[in-house]
């Protein structure tokens, strides 16, 4: 574990409920996230973990509840406002821009920070050109960090699965987020790829102080890298706390292994 200091609560989710018609995806869920920590969300399939992430960065609007981010209370986020506020995320089934190169995907992660208008861009004129170069430099730092130099010009559709996952992390990192939402970053990977991914996640957290909210099914990974864990089941929160507490929580054990009736 790194030595970074965990700060105050940066994101507080209060009584979030989300329904799709009659289906209750999330029911009255509250938890908080502290600055610089790695916060894991776990739970069986269909527990509402991805819905939770989608609420956090505004893809879904909850029917009830509030989101307090850096002391500012709001009912729901909006995706581009969340991005402006410093949220970045990866998706469960890779959501890269398939037709674009790795470099372009990462540059797109920085689009929000680019200010020149499209006329200047069409002429490749002064500020637009300087801006491209400046952001290219930042993106190259991310490329170095994730060790994907050799594939920077490759269209992402041609890359193997593990690398695509890494590129997607890169696109999120390119935005220099303050909160990084990772939806199953290690799903479908082999042991070495998982180790690499864990190393990157810990390094991001350690070097840049990025707060990380992580959904993951690999319990070994979750217990090793996260500071605190939220457990969801059928859209309800059934456990919250340090990995060891959660591991011994009878409700959690029941949700994962079933109970004797």
């Amino acid at each position, binding site marked *: 574990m790194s030595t970074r200091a965990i700060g105050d609560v940066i994101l507080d989710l209060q009584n979030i409920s989300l329904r799709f018609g009659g289906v209750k995806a999330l029911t009255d869920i509250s938890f908080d996230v502290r600055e610089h920590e790695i916060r894991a969300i776990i739970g069986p399939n269909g527990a509402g973990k991805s819905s939770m992430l989608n609420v956090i960065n505004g893809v879904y609007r909850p029917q009830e509840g509030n989101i307090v981010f850096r002391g500012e209370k709001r009912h729901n986020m909006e995706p581009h406002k969340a991005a*402006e506020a410093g949220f970045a995320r990866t998706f469960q089934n890779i959501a*890269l821009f398939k*037709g674009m190169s790795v470099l372009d995907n990462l540059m*797109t992660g920085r689009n929000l920070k680019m200010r020149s208008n499209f006329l200047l861009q069409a002429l490749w004129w002064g500020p637009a050109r300087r801006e*491209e170069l400046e952001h290219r*430099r930042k993106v190259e730092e991310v490329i170095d960090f994730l060790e994907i130099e050799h594939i920077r010009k490759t269209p992402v559709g041609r890359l193997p699965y593990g690398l695509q996952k890494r590129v997607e992390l890169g696109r999120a990192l390119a935005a220099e987020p303050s909160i990084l939402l990772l939806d199953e970053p290690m799903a479908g990977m082999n042991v070495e790829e998982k180790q690499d991914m864990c190393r990157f996640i810990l390094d991001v957290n350690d070097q840049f102080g990025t707060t990380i909210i992580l959904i993951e099914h690999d319990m070994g990974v979750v217990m090793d890298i996260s500071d605190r864990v939220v457990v969801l089941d059928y859209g309800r929160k059934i456990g919250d706390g340090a990995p060891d507490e959660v591991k011994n929580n009878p409700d959690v054990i029941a949700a994962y292994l079933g109970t004797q009736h």
Partner: protein
Amino acid sequence: MFYREAGQFKSSYAADQQIFPIRQDRIGIAAILIAAFVAVPLFGNEYWFVAILIPFLIFALAALGLNILTGYAGQLSLGAAAFMAVGAYAAYNFQLRVDGIPILVSFICAGLTAAAVGIVFGLPSLRIKGFYLAVATLAAQFFIVWCLTKFPWLSNNSSSGVISAQRIIIFGHEFESAREKYLLVLCIVVLMAMMAKNMARSSIGRAWMAVRDMDVAAEVVGIRLMHTKLLAFAVSSFYCGVAGALYAFCYLGSVEPDGFSLDLSFKILFMIIVGGVGTILGSFLGAAFILLLPIFLNVTLPWIAELLHLPINGATVSHIETMVFGALIMFFLIIEPHGLARLWQIGKEKLRLWPFPH
């Protein structure tokens, strides 16, 4: 062997991000430009300019416009011809009604008018996509042609909406001959193609492609879908509008609303499908294929028939022409659904290695 970047080291991001990073590309483009600006005007004849080169350039520009919208931003549209019509009629009206307006300014205004109309008809794209959007853009196609026929003011009260383009005078010089018109069209097309290339490789182009490839992810990285899609409609319509103005002023001379029918929209759509969706080069290749192949067949078929001592007449030629044309389109789409531009790209990748296996 011929085409490889070995030995071309980039020592700065600026060098790596220039418009044509590979030397062979730069030489190729320079050669084409020199040929187009110097050799062709020197040696070309009237027939070549009027029947082949001018329409090729104008349709390439329209295809480029549609490619920005459909190829880059992923919004399927069947209204390209309608936006060309807006451009043609707007340029005519600006020339007619604004005293002393330079022709180039009225071309730009024509583009802007088309862009404004494009934004209006792009609004449905905020809610629907794919084939449904294509059907919604049909509204533009029919509504605009109807408007131009219905409101005589737009065609200065001419019968059935026919307009005759005014003379083209730039800085006191009248562009009258086909050669001069060719050069004018060439300048505009080269400039706008370069601008399209620049947009495609900067943040606006990436935003368009992001929306095309995965709109949810695009929204999550902070791209505003509404703004991005409408800008794609505006820029695309601007290109189509300028192409339409050139179509009226430099190619046909007089146009009528029915000339900008759905057929023409389809023709432009076929150009980008055959040429390559989402590439600048593809717009040119597609326009060349769709326009030049019929002419080529028209010339070669009687010649082949004569060689084989077969009886042939004009009607047979045009029937065979249509059949061969259709068959060739299918053939190309089966061997390479991503269009001629992809074939060119694959060829380049092969040439990088040739004659070595890997």
